[in-house]
């Protein structure tokens, strides 16, 4: 059986459908991403898999163990890094690590191999209280604490949120190295660009999975032609394009706007030039995960 199996999970909080018919599996050594904004249901799903919350309906297994019946066994086997920083702020880096090792009846020394790469980066600060670390350092320590008992499955809930691009890149490099140790990793993120770093992803919004596949397959399946637009006055360009009858969608994408149209670009560009736009650049653009995500969001017309 696959290390993580989720079958038709539902969870309701009052009137809000936090999770709606969620199903997927994660294979051995697979890095699986839950991609979606706050409120998509990612953390609720983690809490169910980490045996901290009961689903209303559906079934989930971790290492072949049932998340409801076998919760004690699961808790010993998984490493869980919650979205909110949950280490002891008043304990030092080293104390936190020893604390988590002790809870799991092990020692830092016994599993040091697994965390060496990561721990060495924060070792210079080992006597600093965890609460005084920078964002990136905190995340590295939290990952060490989640790994110190040599878990057979790793749950990482938004490990890179609010972390700067350099620390984010370092964190993902660490996950790639962990993969080589054959630990399946379920990781969530609101940063769409991080989807491409996963083996497979589930795109989530409003408690539902909109699509599951490898990132290249998701992009390849997206058939809508996207055009990149740029001019000297981007704010006016956005407004003019949105007002144009042939333009379906227009979103800012870094230096360019990504535009989908019902006509060819020449018809639109004519009216832009006539409207006084200078420095106009129009070229075909490759869709990315974020383009697909937005298209799926718009198709998901109402919350489930």
């Amino acid at each position, binding site marked *: 059986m696959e290390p993580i199996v989720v079958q038709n999970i539902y969870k309701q909080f009052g009137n809000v459908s936090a999770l709606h018919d969620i199903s997927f599996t994660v294979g051995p050594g697979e890095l699986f991403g839950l991609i*979606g*904004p*706050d*409120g*998509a249901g990612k953390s609720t799903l983690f809490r169910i898999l980490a045996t901290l919350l009961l689903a209303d309906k559906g079934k989930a297994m971790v290492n072949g163990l049932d998340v409801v019946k076998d919760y004690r066994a699961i808790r010993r086997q998984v490493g869980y890094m919650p979205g909110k920083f949950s280490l002891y702020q008043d304990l030092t880096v080293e104390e936190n690590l020893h604390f988590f090792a002790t809870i799991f009846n092990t020692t830092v020394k016994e599993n040091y191999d697994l965390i060496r790469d990561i721990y060495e980066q924060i070792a210079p600060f080992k006597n600093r209280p965890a609460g005084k670390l*920078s*964002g*990136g350092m905190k995340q590295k320590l939290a990952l060490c604490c989640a790994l110190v008992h040599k878990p057979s499955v790793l749950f990482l809930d938004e490990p890179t*949120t*609010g*972390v*700067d*691009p*350099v*620390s*984010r*890149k370092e964190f993902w490099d660490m996950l790639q190295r962990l993969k080589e140790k054959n630990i399946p990793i379920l990781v969530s993120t*609101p*940063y*769409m*660009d991080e989807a491409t770093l996963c083996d497979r992803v589930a795109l989530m*919004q409003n408690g539902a999975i909109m699509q599951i596949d490898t990132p290249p397959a998701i992009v390849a399946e997206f058939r809508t032609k996207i055009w990149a637009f740029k001019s000297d006055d*981007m*704010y006016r360009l*956005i407004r003019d394009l949105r007002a144009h009858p042939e333009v379906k969608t227009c*979103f*800012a*994408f*870094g*230096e360019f706007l990504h535009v989908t149209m019902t006509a060819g670009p020449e018809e639109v560009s004519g009216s832009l030039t006539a409207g006084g736009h200078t420095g106009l650049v129009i070229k075909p653009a490759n869709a990315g995960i*974020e383009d697909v*995500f*937005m298209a799926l*969001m*718009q198709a998901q017309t109402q919350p489930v």
Partner: protein
Amino acid sequence: MTQSAITTTALTKRFGNFIATNAITFDVAQGEIFGFLGANGAGKTTAMRMLCGLLRPSSGEARVAGFDIYTQTEKIKQRIGYMSQKFSLYEDLTVKENIRFYGGIYGLSNRQIRDKTADLLQRLSLEQEGNMLVKALPLGWKQKLAFSIAVIHDPSIVFLDEPTGGVDPITRRQFWDLIYESAAKGVTIFVTTHYMDEAEYCNRISIMVDGKIKALDTPAALKKQYGADTMNEVFLQLARAKS
């Protein structure tokens, strides 16, 4: 010549032996969208708190909206707006109560508050939600509301500290529509973000590394200077060089 909204000269803040902000010098023009980037711990928040009149510098000079940051901090606070992901609205007040509360703080008259409330709810399509508690709103709506409230007193500068964290890609772009709209009206936008695609939407960007400004230019010029295709590459090159 365009009047400067912010001007700093060798602005410095020390905490004991630690220099959080190290002699930064820059100008921001009125109506400019200025991206203030840097790694976690690079000194952005310290600099921003000084510019908002919340923290007294150790040395150096700065004027914000024409006022001195040592002696005229109360004047500065009246002329700026501020919003961050962490602090924005009162969750246990309704949408209208939040507008009324902030309008009151900034000294708007009852009549102004009434007009602003109607205008704001209509622009954000929140007419139906006016009497809802803010905590019941989706995050994206909260952030758009928070921005609109941050500019309710028509400030000349608005400081945005990672305003778009965690929101979905469509809402994130709608938020930037609001930013563009305000900038087009002449409001200066001073914004921090960890989304490097958003850095491209700024007129100019500064990148702080270890308390100093390591680069300051338009996104296009920075990409050219560092031989990079994206701002993300520029950022990685600069912020990584330190270690």
